């Protein structure tokens, strides 16, 4: 009995506790990201934003969540029920499982697997399924058009994201996320690989369907895009999944280019602050740029979006892979 406890039950309990310790703050962060988005957009447009529920409107995300929870779930009669229900669940799930490999500090990670960055890449490339399943199962023109746009868009931008990851891996020599952050102790990769940093960030906007690449849900053309038939909690799951994906993409940007949990300079006042706080601050900064971009740029036309992905980012990132490899070999800086 004691063996069963120490061998199987105790590890299970510990892992479940760790998962809760990651997911609960994440969901809180998602809720307050929606609040931050409305406040930032309001500030940039000289409005007040949510300011009624609670002090400074801080109760607004909770009120919105409760409102969605108490609404009726409408399933269209022509919809394919199982896929219709599964789609938001898949989106939400994919927004959460990526966090299993994110290192919050040196050694502070749920699953320190060898191929962490590939796992993250796989999870982010699966995000398209929630959208495409929702669009098809809704049995509605607008939803279907949104889903098709999204499928083409996410597959296109994934390729340049892959090449950006390859350039970083060339400089690190490991697929492990902790190793990637440790390799940036002297210099963050955002400095030597600045063009790749920009390509990654813009592709990240496209991959998470954010403005100016939010064509799958272009409200002026497609009513609301792939989620037009969804109401109440399934809609809320899409919403939560999208914002969790934004945070995950920001975390990936931070780990690959902004030195993860490392302080900007390794001197006294900076390295007193613990790593997770640096990590959170960097994620918040990247997220602010996500919101800033939304307030600033108009939506891309579809052919322009495809042109940017295939004719600009793909050749540029491919060139940088070759350049990085060439420089590393020529200077003998190839890791191990």
């Amino acid at each position, binding site marked *: 009995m004691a063996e069963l406890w120490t061998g199987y039950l105790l590890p299970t309990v510990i892992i479940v506790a760790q998962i809760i310790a990651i997911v609960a703050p994440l969901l809180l962060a998602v809720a307050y990201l929606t609040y931050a988005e409305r406040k930032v957009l309001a500030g940039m447009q000289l409005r007040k934003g949510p300011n009624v529920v609670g002090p400074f409107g801080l109760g607004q995300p909770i009120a919105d969540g409760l409102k969605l929870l108490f609404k009726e779930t409408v399933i269209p009669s022509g919809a394919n029920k199982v896929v219709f229900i599964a789609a938001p669940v898949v989106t939400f799930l994919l927004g959460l499982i990526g966090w299993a490999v994110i290192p919050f500090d040196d050694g502070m990670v749920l699953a320190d697997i060898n*191929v962490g960055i590939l796992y993250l890449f796989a999870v982010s490339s*699966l995000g398209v399924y929630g959208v495409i399943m929702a669009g098809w199962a809704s049995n509605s023109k607008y939803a279907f058009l949104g889903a098709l746009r999204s499928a083409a868009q996410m597959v296109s931008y994934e390729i340049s994201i892959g090449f950006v990851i390859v350039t970083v891996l060339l400089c690190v020599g490991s697929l492990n996320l902790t190793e990637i952050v440790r390799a940036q102790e002297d210099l963050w990769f955002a400095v030597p690989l600045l063009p790749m940093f920009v390509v990654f960030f813009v592709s990240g906007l496209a991959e998470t369907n954010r403005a100016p690449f939010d064509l799958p849900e272009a409200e002026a053309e497609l009513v609301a895009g792939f989620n037009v038939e969804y109401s109440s909690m399934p809609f809320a799951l899409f919403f939560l999944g999208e914002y969790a994906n934004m945070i995950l993409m920001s975390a990936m940007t931070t780990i690959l280019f902004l030195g993860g949990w490392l302080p900007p300079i390794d001197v006294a006042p900076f390295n007193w602050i613990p790593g997770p706080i640096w990590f959170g601050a960097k994620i918040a900064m990247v997220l602010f740029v996500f919101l800033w971009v939304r307030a600033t740029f108009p939506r891309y036309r579809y052919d322009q979006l495809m042109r940017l992905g295939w004719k600009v980012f793909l050749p540029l990132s491919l060139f940088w892979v070759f350049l990085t490899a060439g420089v590393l070999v020529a200077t003998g800086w190839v890791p191990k």
Partner: protein
Amino acid sequence: MIVQALAFYMFATVAIAAGVMVISARNPVHSVLFLIAAFFNAAGLFVLMGAEFLAMILVIVYVGAVAVLFLFVVMMLDINFVEMRQGFLQYLPIGGLIGVILLIELLFVFAGWTVTPDAGNVAALPMFDLSEVSNTRALGRLLYTKYIYLFQAAGLVLLVAMIGAIVLTLRPRKGVRRQKVPDQVRRTRAESVEIKKVETGKGI
């Protein structure tokens, strides 16, 4: 140990069940979704064998790219489900025969391993000690040294296939007005704006 065995049987059972559903599901979109489930379980089996790189590549390439395009095409097709079911019994014997042949071949391979356990060493593959190098590194060292020519040849085959597909489907269309970004950027105020004084009631 028992957890691993349980995980193996779970992945294997679900993979086979999903495979059966791929060919027996009435709706082709459901078939593709079951195919994706089968891919996932195959990736799970790879992880159990300690081949985590192959597992992730399987998910990225097959689930993340190939199956998306598959789903894309199947969703757009206007398929008559009744017509599609009719050929099922007709092709069943041939399909079954192929399945049986594959099963026999697999049994031969397995029997070979059991009868002569050191048959694997005859092939003289330069295997790495997987306790020292990660399997990503081991795969890379093999692919880019010993098998570099085969690897490059495989890449060229894919490139030719891609070019072939583009050549077959590309049709020049007349009257397409493409966006010329350099021209748009080069435009200046002087050549695109003209200010005219219009007198009341006259027009330009």
